[in-house]
Structure formats: C-alpha cells, structure tokens
C-alpha cells in the first residue's frame, strides 16, 4: 500500500503566490470613495486592479511550476513521481 515516505504532494514555494489575491478580501483597505479614477470611486477601481494581479500570480505559478521532466528530451515522460521529486526544489 502507501509507504510513509511516498508523499502525494509536490510543493513549490511559488505556490505561495496563490495567496496574494486573497488580500482583496480585506475590505477596510479599500472601502473609500476617493481618489477616483475615470470617475470610478476607489472601491471599484481598486478591485478591478486586482484582476491583473490575480492573473499575474496564477500565471507565474503556472510558468514556474510546469511539471519538470526536464531531464528527458524528445520522449514522453516515463519517470515516476519520486524521480521527479528528486529534481524539484
């Protein structure tokens, strides 16, 4: 069955970036009318600004944690999870 050493998780510190967009849930930081941009109160444009922030964070995690079978070129990846984990981090 499952051995204790064989973890089903592959962790990368880049994943921590996924927590950044959660900052937009702290409403006291942006629940204000001024300053306005293009007539939009701060409350609205601040949250719109988080759309690209979210995209950037998720995009970075995607690019930086692409499964790393880099050792194998031109062939489909046939390595086991443990072998792959050796290369990660």
């Amino acid at each position: 069955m499952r051995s204790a050493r064989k973890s089903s998780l592959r962790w990368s510190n880049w994943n921590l970036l996924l927590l950044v967009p959660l900052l937009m849930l702290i409403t006291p930081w942006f629940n204000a009318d001024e300053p306005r941009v293009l007539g939009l109160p701060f409350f609205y444009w601040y949250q719109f600004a988080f759309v690209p922030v979210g995209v950037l964070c998720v995009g970075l995690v995607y690019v930086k944690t692409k499964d790393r079978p880099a050792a194998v070129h031109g062939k489909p990846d046939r390595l086991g999870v443990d072998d792959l984990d050796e290369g990660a981090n």
Partner: protein
Amino acid sequence: MQWTELVVFSALFLLVTVLGFVAAKWQAGDTLEHLDEWGLGGRKFGSWITWFLVGGDLYTAYTFVAVPALVFGAGALGFYALPYTVVLYPLVFLPLVRMWSVSRVHGYVTPADFVRGRYGSHWLALIIAITGIIATMPYIALQLVGLEAVLRTMGLNGSGFLGHLPLFIAFVILALYTYQSGLRAPALIAFVKDTLIYLVILVAVIYLPSKFGGWSAIFDGAQARFEATPAKSDGILLNGNNQLQYATLALGSALALFLYPHSLTGILASRGRNVIKRNMVALPAYSLLLGLLAMLGFVAMSAGVKPITNQATGRPDTNTIVPVLFGQEFPSWFAGIAFAAIGIGALVPAAIMSIAAANLWTRNIYKEYLKKDATPAQEAKQAKLASLVVKFGAVAFIVFIDPQFSIDLQLIGGVMILQTLPAVAIALYTRWFHIWGLVAGWVVGMGWGMYLLYQIPSADGKRPHFGGSALALDKLSLLGWHPLAGSTVQIYVGVVAVAANLLVAVVVTLIARKLRVFNGTDQTKADDYHADEDSPNLRPAATH
C-alpha cells in the same frame, strides 16, 4: 411587441439551434453511446474550447442579469461578484489539476465518483451525489429566470401558462439537442454566446456612461438615490455592518463554485493539466466583464430604468433592469443582439448543468443501486433520459411555482454544496478525515446552515424566512445560545455552516480513529494525482 428585437433574437437563436444539432458530429469519437463521449465530449477539449465552455458555464445568464440587479438594489454589496471571481482561480488552481488527473486515471465522471473511489463508500458518494443534484436543480431553473427576463422585456409578457410558452419552446429545443449531442452542444454554442456577450458588454460600458455624464456623475447620482431610500445597508460603498458579509460571501462563493458538479464537468472534459492551468490564467477575462456588467446597475439608476412587472406573478422583476436598460438606450437591432446574448447565455449553462445532474444520477444512483451491471451504452442512454427529466423539472419549477422559490432554493443550494468541501476538495489532498467524520460534518453543516437561512428575513421585511444569505451575528444561535447577541455585523451563512462542518468532522474523525473504526479502502494511488495526458497509466477514454 418589439419586432426588430424579436427578429434578431430569433435569428441568433436559430443559429445556435443548428449548431446544437450539428455538434453531435463535431470531433466525434467512435461512439456517442458512452458517458465519456456524451457527458464529457470525449475528454479531449483543448485550451480554447475549454475557455469558452467553462466561461460559458460559470458566468451564466442569471449572473448577468442578477448581479447588476443586486447592484441596482443594494449598491456596493452587489459588486462582491468581482472579488468572488478573482480569488476563485488562485484557490482552485492546485486542487483542480489533481481532480482532473485522478479522474482521468480512474475514469471518474462526477465528484461523487471520486469520493466513491477515494473512500470506497457508496453511501458517502450517495450523499455527495444527492447534494449535487439538489443544488444544481434550482440553478437550472434560474437560467430560465434569466431567459424569461429577456423574453418579457421583448414584449412576450403574457400571463398564466401562455406567458410561459416562449420559454417552454426554447427549452424543448435545448432539451432535444442536448439529448442528441451531449456536452458538445453547449461547447459549440458557447463560442457564439461568449462572443456576443463580450461584444454587448464592451459596447455598453464604453457607450452608455457618456450618455449620462460619465462615471463620476453616475456614481454621484446613485449615491444621492441610495441616501433617499429608507434602507441603511445600501450605498456606493460598504458600511460597518456588511463588510464581513462582502468578504465572506466572495470567499464562500469561490470555495463553492467548483464543488458544483457542472463546473467540474467542464474541467474533466479538458484534454490535460496544462489546458486547465492555462484556463485558470485566462478565465479572469470573464471576471473583468462581470465587474463591468455589475456597474451597469448604477447606469440603470441614472437612466431611470423601471423594472418590468412580471405578468405571471404580478410583481416587478428587478432582474429585467439590464434588458430594459439595453432596450431603452440601444437601437433596436443592437438591443436584439444584446437580448440574444443573454438568452443564449442561459442555454449553455442550463445544458451543462442538466448533463452534470444526469451524470450524477446515472453513475452514483442508477449504476450503483438500480442496475449494477449497466453497460456503458445503457449508462449513456440513462443519462440522456435523465437530462430530459432534469430540464423539464426546471421548467415546471418556473411555470407552476413562484420563481422566487427558485431564487431562495439557489441561495440554499450554495450553502448546501459548500458542505461537500471536506469530502471532495480536502480529500484530494488527504485521507485524514474519517468517513464517519465527513458524514457527521455534512449532517451538522447542512442542518445548521438550513436553520440559520430559515431565520433570515428578506431585506424589505416582507418575507420572514429564507430572505437572504446575510446573517446578523446577533441571530447566530446554537441550540438557543446566542454567543454574539447585540451585534449587527453580518456574515455569509455558508462559511459559518462549513466551519461547523469542519469542526464536527475533525472531532468525529479523532474519535473514530481512537476506536479504530474501518475507514474504507482507497482505490487511488499517490501517482494518480499527477497523471497527465501523456502518462502511461491513463484509461483510454470511452472504452471501458
């Protein structure tokens, strides 16, 4: 009757009907008589198709009419839809690829299939399946509310059964091509739907504000109107009482969304992990759109839009404000395109939701309890029939029962589906929770959540129960004990219920582990959660 709008609407509706039927042949596999094909489009959709399909699935017609309607009525609170759909993708990015991999290796079609495999318990899977079906049904009905809002705005606003006839016809057509083509139908139609939606919203957001003196004047006017109303909770900003509600509603909705079976259907239909990951980066384009759309609620206030009175219920329907705004401010041919965008926007999610509910019925009830030896072809047949039943159930809901009932039920459905979080989402990472802990947590989260929702009166005070999802902490009660009596701060019921769910699950798990109660057999292996499209351990799609 608005003839120009009707003609444009009908022409576009006809176009998607044709697409719906030809979709059966689109990228067809060897057979449609298999759930992998009918219910998941062959499990081979690439990045673009998935983007349109999932976008069309998550951002529904009801969202497009209800979010601006909420902003129109309550102001800033309705804008929660933006943070909801921004925090969504980072939250689900990692769990979704694991779900895809394990489902691809084992041929799972529904979230309950995964729970069945992970815990080896068909009872736990049954609970998840029933929760999914009950939460999805009112959601389908709400798509009809969105479609009907458009039809009534175009003048098809009859009373009684005749008033519902146009809706009925639209749904019969939808039911027929979904029956024939399965998930390929909404996937193909989604291209039309989303293109129209982007076109309409971008034109609306660029063109309309200038007609009313720019955004600054629109927001100032809205604030003046909110101040004139007796309600204290509205305004263009949040207040001390609804900030917690705003944040928890956004977070709770984000956690719940991919627990809905129909959201997962779109994910499982994709070809590989990278398709999903790319979509997590690209789908926020729809969030931007939704945020812009939400602000049309303020524009509607400036335009002095009056909601149309629904002749079937006799009440003004605020869900008509965006269609009315478009009808009032756009030339009729463009209003027709806008109405078609919303109307077709109802068809895509309604089709996917009925397929997802049909898959749950077939895999986790029919095959599990009624016909254990069902062949793949029999499963596909059963799912097709179930999708018809589900759709006509939804129509009956709207025609024979007050639409308000569907709105209440959808509210409840969100709280319900959130209770499957430990068994579905957390189980992707760990099997630490015990089956009995998960069941006990589900029972408590469900029961307490329903009880708390029952206690919430509507904002206008007209209905004493199920009036919303914002619970004043004062009303938070546990068997008569009010720990936060006197507080007027509001919170989203869903997160309260799921917190109780998790707490109970942890306690019961600890007890069950102490007593060494058998915790089912795990059919999944660690590697399964990382399998990708080129992995050797995949089951070929549509063969087993």
